[in-house]
Structure formats: structure tokens, C-alpha cells
């Protein structure tokens, strides 16, 4: 039995080299059994990554315009298909959710309304859901 190869010896436990935990990004996405405020944190991470991905896809989609008029027609067909409209709704959810929660983070993070940060989350997310429903209907009908 030998001491392991970890770099640092513990001062409180002489002769022992504790196992370091390393950077654990999975801790950003574990909302279950956690406080509701943590859901806001997860929402912002997930939506943020989603929006970055959207940005890339947006560039790809716009590049269709280089294909002239035929390219433009293909583009319109693609972007008005039900699948794409659904993705648009998901995108809208991400924007509204990330945006409104971001508003909460900006307020609380500047030291304002800190005692109401949980209530703020509930209120803003309710508004988000309402806006999303309206927006979703508009996307599919307009």
C-alpha cells in the first residue's frame, strides 16, 4: 500500500495526499433537489449555450442567400417548414428565458432587490411563459 501520486500533501493529515476533485462542469447542470434559484442558473447556462449554437446555425442559414434567387426560394421553404417554426419557438424560449432571468441576475447582481430574488424569478418566468405562448402563436399563424 503506497501513498498515491497526487501532488500535494495535506497539512492537517500528515503523510496523506488527498484526491483532488478537478474542475467539474457537470456541477453547472444539476438542478434536481436544489433550490429553485439554481434553476435560474441552469436555465441561463443552457439557454446561453443554445443561443451560441443558434448564432452559428444562423450564419449557415444566411449563407443560403449566396445561392441567388433559387437559393432564396429554398431558404424560404426551409424556414417556413413546421420543423423550423418549432425550432423558432424553442429559440424564442431561450431568448426570453435567458433575457428575463438575465435581467434578474443583473438587478440582484448589482445588489438590488436581493431579498426578493426568488420571487423575482417566479414573476419573471411567469411573464416569460406568457410571452412565449403569445410569440409561439404568432410564429405559427402570422
Amino acid at each position, binding site marked *: *500500500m503506497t501513498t498515491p501520486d497526487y501532488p500535494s500533501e495535506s497539512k492537517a493529515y*500528515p*503523510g496523506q495526499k488527498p484526491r483532488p476533485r478537478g474542475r467539474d462542469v457537470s456541477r453547472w447542470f444539476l438542478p434536481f433537489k436544489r433550490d429553485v434559484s439554481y434553476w435560474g442558473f441552469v436555465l441561463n447556462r443552457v439557454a446561453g449555450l443554445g443561443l451560441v449554437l443558434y448564432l452559428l446555425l444562423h450564419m449557415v442559414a444566411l449563407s443560403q442567400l449566396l445561392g441567388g434567387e433559387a437559393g432564396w426560394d429554398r431558404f424560404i421553404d426551409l424556414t417556413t417548414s413546421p420543423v423550423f417554426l418549432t425550432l423558432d419557438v424553442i429559440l424564442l424560449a431561450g431568448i426570453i428565458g435567458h433575457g428575463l432571468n438575465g435581467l434578474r441576475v443583473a438587478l440582484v447582481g448589482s445588489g438590488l432587490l436581493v431579498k426578493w430574488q426568488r420571487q423575482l424569478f417566479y414573476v419573471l418566468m411567469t411573464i416569460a411563459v406568457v410571452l412565449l405562448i403569445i410569440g409561439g402563436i404568432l410564429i405559427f399563424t402570422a
Partner: protein
Amino acid sequence: MNTQASKYSVLVIGGGSTGAAVAHDLALRGFKTTLVERGEIASGTTGRNHCLLHSGARYCVKDKESAIECIEENMILRKIMPDSMELNGGLFVAVNDSDMAYMPLFIEGCEETGIPYKQYTGEEARRLEPYLSEKTLAAVWVPDGVFEPMRMCMAFLATAKKNGALVLPYTEVKGLHMEGNRVTGARVWDRIQKREYDLYADLVVNAAGPWAENIARMAGVDVPVVPTPGVMTSMTGRLCQRVINRMNVSSDGDIIVPQRQTSIIGTSSWTVDDADYIEIPEDHVQLMYQRGSEMIPQVGKVKPRGIFVVARPLIGRKGQDEREIARTFEAFDHAVSDNVEGFVTISGGKTTTARAMAETTVNVIADKLDVEAPCQTRDTVLLSYRDYYLI
């Protein structure tokens, strides 16, 4: 640097207040000190202490020796561990005629043992402590305090480490090495790496609290340590600013200690054989609520936060009434009592007097090893407990 002492190595068994204070005193005098503790520091008796820094007034009538010890150590600890304790004093409250009858004896006891005190009427006491029972007739203020035992052990050990001591938690003594009638070291089990190895020393100190008898038997000797548990209940809410004691002969549930946002009622007393795991008797818990409520009616009604029990290491013979066993300490030099060299047991006592216990023990050790090394722990200010993790 005491070159005489540094020639000798001492192994201390037990990382509670006794062991920690002994290790600190040894290291301060220049001995090569190693301390082994089978769990986390203060995970035995000391950790689950009532956290009361005794003024000694509790013993000033029936056990004046103990009382004088306490008030002296109380003052010393304030000096060597500054900014580590709630120092709002304590009140001894009388809520009935029997208590009032005890009061003159109490006051006399304080006078004789040199404990500073101040008398208050029931009304004045209730102005100081609004949650006190309406039945409070009178009260006497004494310099009680509140400390945290684990942090105290860590303060002793941080200082000891600074002076060169080696502190090994999660290291359990499995046996003692002997050469003839001399203890030469211990066979220890590293519970983290799950391996056994040997530690040798010129002298071994048995400071294992209620387990002192188990350790002593490894050297073939017996020590009269009786594990004597008591129940304590930490209640939600800081219902008193000062320690509240009952003005009577020491009895169960007659102290309420405030700590942060809680009030801790204690304690009771019974004997067990095995101190490793002790079931908490429900009737003792109810007794705490009931007795505590006699002084602060709310305290038995708020939600309990933590209910705990641990065995005190009292010195006595088994079968003797627990309350009769004196809470003084004793250092056994086994060369004198049992013809076993190189082995000293220190047992009994209370955390408030840990430093004094260590002074006595290390004086005995210095004598045995014929080393000229006076005790300096009365005046040496301890390092912060945080340094335990950093040195």
C-alpha cells in the same frame, strides 16, 4: 530551544482536550512530540462537551478544590485564547425557596474560592435576561463563558505543530510495544491507508479519555476510568445572553448554555461499559426539557436542533454513584503504581482545566526523564485554530 528536552520523544494517545493540551505543553518545552487520534480531533468526549467555560461556582460549595482550579483556568484561558469565547458571564438563578436556602452557602463558597460574583434581585435578573422564568427570586452573576471545544483543541494543536509536534488523526493504537516492563512505543493503524506501522517513543502518554482503560490494558495495567455519559439538547433560539445555572446542588439539567443562535440544556449522568456508541435515553431528553423550563420556560418548547450524548472519563470505581465520583483529574505514573516504565495516564477532569491537567502531567514527565523544563503554558498565547489546517 531546550536541548535537554529535545533528546526525548513522547507519544500522546488521544486527540481530545487532554491530549491536545499535553501535546502543546510538551512541544513548548521542547520535547519531540507525536500525537495519535483514531478519529477526527475532538471527535470523542471533548467535541460533545457542553461548551461551558466554568467559573467554578458550580463546585464552590461541595468541591472547593475543583472550584479553585476552574476559576484559575478560566482566567488563564481568557488570556491564552483571546477572541475565542463568548464572555458574557453566567447567572445562577433561584426559582424556589429551596434554591434561596442554598444561596447563602453559594455566596460563601464564591468568597472562599475567590470567584468574582455580583448579586441581583429577581426583577433585575429578568431585566438582564427577559426569557427567565417569572418565578425567578434572585440571581448571582459569575464569570462563566462559552467556548467551542473542537476549536480549542485545534488552537492547542496548531501551536504544538508550530513548535514541531506531529499530529496524526485517523491513527488508531492497536497495541503497545513493551520491552520487559517498559513501554517503548505503539503499534498503530493508519485508518486512511489501512496499514499498520510502529511508532516508538521514550514515553507514552495515555490521554484517551473514556477509552483510557482500553489503552492501559495494552500495557497490562488498569486505570479506574468509568465512562459516564450525559445527554445535552441544543434548542433553536438564543434564549439567554449569559449562561443560566440553577442555584442548587449540582443536578441534572441545571445549566443552559447559549451559543450563537442556540441554547444548550444539560446534562445528565449514567455509566456505561462501552463508550464507542451510546444510545440516547429518551427519558433523559425529556428531563432536560423539563428542568430547563424551570429556569427559562420557553426553552423546553422550542424546536430541538441537536441532541447529543458522550461519555465523560470520570475516575472512580465502577458501581459507585456517578455524582459522588469527583470531577477532578489524576495523573497515573505507572512506574509508581504498577511497575510499568515509560507510561503515564492522565484522566478525569474537564475541558476547562485541560491546560492545568497538561501542566501536571508534563511536570511528571519532565521529572521522570530528568529534564529541566519549566511549564510556560500559562502565558503562551495560542495560535488561531485556523492555523491547525495550515501548518
